[in-house]
């Protein structure tokens, strides 16, 4: 039996990850160098990488504790236009490949911070969110989030990032983007296919519930 553990917080040496095709070869990143290169990132993503839930606006995701390879892929995708975001593209374009690796390493090893946006959700909405996140709704062919995002929705390898303890506004925005097709950089349309089956209420439910999941750092 092969047992593979992913040390999520250690971004110093980026591996190929367990995924077969999609994670591109990564350069080794240096967190100390990354802290320097991240000077422009912190304005939105904050110095502790916590990001911010912005009600009714564009939320900035928590980056602290996300897999380094995942962060790097998103930056490469923003730069190349494979992921569309007007705010992120100019910032991603300022970084070269080494800086991307460094910045990813830096944020990935920052301690986890708490998310916002799920406080006002009522009991019924949270129950639906928990259902979708942990068991899914197979009658609507919505596979549970944890099927891919791992135990506690804290991530599985570097292909499937942790989504627990992420800002509700950010999760909502991504799910809607997948639904509309304005985000499509997920490997094999794995996320798009699921998002398309979610109702508006489902999206709000799962976002609120995940934001409420406090996750301790490694």
């Amino acid at each position: 039996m092969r047992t593979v553990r992913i040390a999520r917080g250690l971004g110093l040496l980026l591996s190929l990850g367990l995924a077969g095709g999609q994670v591109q070869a990564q350069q080794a990143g240096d967190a100390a160098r990354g802290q320097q290169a991240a000077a422009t990132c912190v304005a939105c993503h904050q110095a502790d990488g916590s990001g911010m839930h912005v009600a009714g606006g564009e939320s900035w995701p928590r980056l602290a504790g996300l897999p380094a390879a995942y962060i790097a892929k998103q930056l490469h995708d923003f730069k190349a236009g494979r992921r569309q975001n007007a705010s992120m593209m100019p910032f991603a374009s300022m970084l070269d490949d080494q800086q991307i690796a460094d910045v990813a390493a830096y944020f990935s090893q920052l301690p986890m911070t708490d998310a916002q946006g799920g406080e006002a959700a009522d009991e019924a909405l949270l129950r639906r969110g928990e259902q979708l996140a942990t068991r899914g709704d197979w009658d609507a062919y919505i596979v549970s989030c944890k099927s891919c995002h791992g135990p506690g929705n804290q991530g599985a390898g570097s292909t499937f990032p942790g989504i627990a303890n992420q800002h509700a506004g950010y999760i909502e925005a991504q799910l809607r983007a997948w639904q509309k097709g304005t985000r499509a950089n997920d490997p094999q349309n794995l996320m798009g296919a699921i998002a398309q089956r979610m109702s508006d209420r489902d999206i709000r439910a799962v976002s609120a519930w995940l934001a409420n999941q406090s996750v301790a750092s490694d």
Partner: protein
Amino acid sequence: MTPHKTTLGRTALAVAGATLAAGVSMAAWAEYETLVEMGYPAPQEGELVHVPPTMADLEQADIHPELKQVIHRGYELFTDTQQLRGKNVFNDMNCSSCHLGEGRQPFSAPVWPAAVTLPDFRGKNQHVNNLEERIAGCFAYSMNGTPPAYGSDDMLALSAYHQWLATGAPMYPDQPIYGRGFPAPERPESLSYARGEALYAEQCAICHSDDGAGLYQDGEYVFPALWGDGSNNWGAGIVRTHTAAGFIKNNMPLGQPLSLSDQQAWDLAYYMTRQERPQDPRFTGDVDEVLERFGATFHKNSSYGEVREHDGHRLADHANWGEKGDVVPWNVGVPRFEDLKD
């Protein structure tokens, strides 16, 4: 137990399950509309359509609280069978690894039919099996383990879960069951290991890893092992190419059922089932003897004992039992009703 009605319409109460016979309209079981929209076949007139209750229904059900707990325990064992690792389970699998949607999902071998079609004669072991013996088979083969004892708490909990899912379905239905098993698409003229291999790298490896070992994360097997010591052994139903093709076509990639062509599903099944895994518990030391004894009832449909073209490796020609070591599943090879066979 709350009595159940079998009608053409749904009642307004918290119905634990809905079962309908011939001549149904779509509105009668709205749960399966989505499946049909996704491309699954619509239920045909004369088919038994059953929508198993959910764990949410269990919470509301008017049944004895201890029964609820026992059914819930069965559900937990079904979805986290790993808790029996080292005792009954000796690989990386859970029942729900293949019986998707908590064992409720049509076209993903939902488990409730076993509760209403058994006891019955089973070709695999050539005698009449009841539900517990059927479940025991899953432990011996799919879990590369040894089953909990008949009548034990764990076995009772698992059967209770199966029966709960069958709530309202008729016993010994004389109709074909909608969504039963892993129905295989028509077998194409030729299957290609090389095509299967290439497609695997492109479509499957992202979750199941390049070496088919799946993904282990934070104490759980997020994606199951498809071959190797972590997977089912050579006696499991899914080693049969048509069963694997049926599973893959109707369920994979996860969340994207029916997205692969019939040819692709069969090529992937061919590739996957021609990888090594722990030995069949019925092995006595000789691959040809296993083929002789169990070819007609089982291995004629698998690649057991075949020689792989690209490397000359003869499949299953080994005595690797995986993590199980010399643990022998007590239910394998045990005959029944020998006096009837005179």
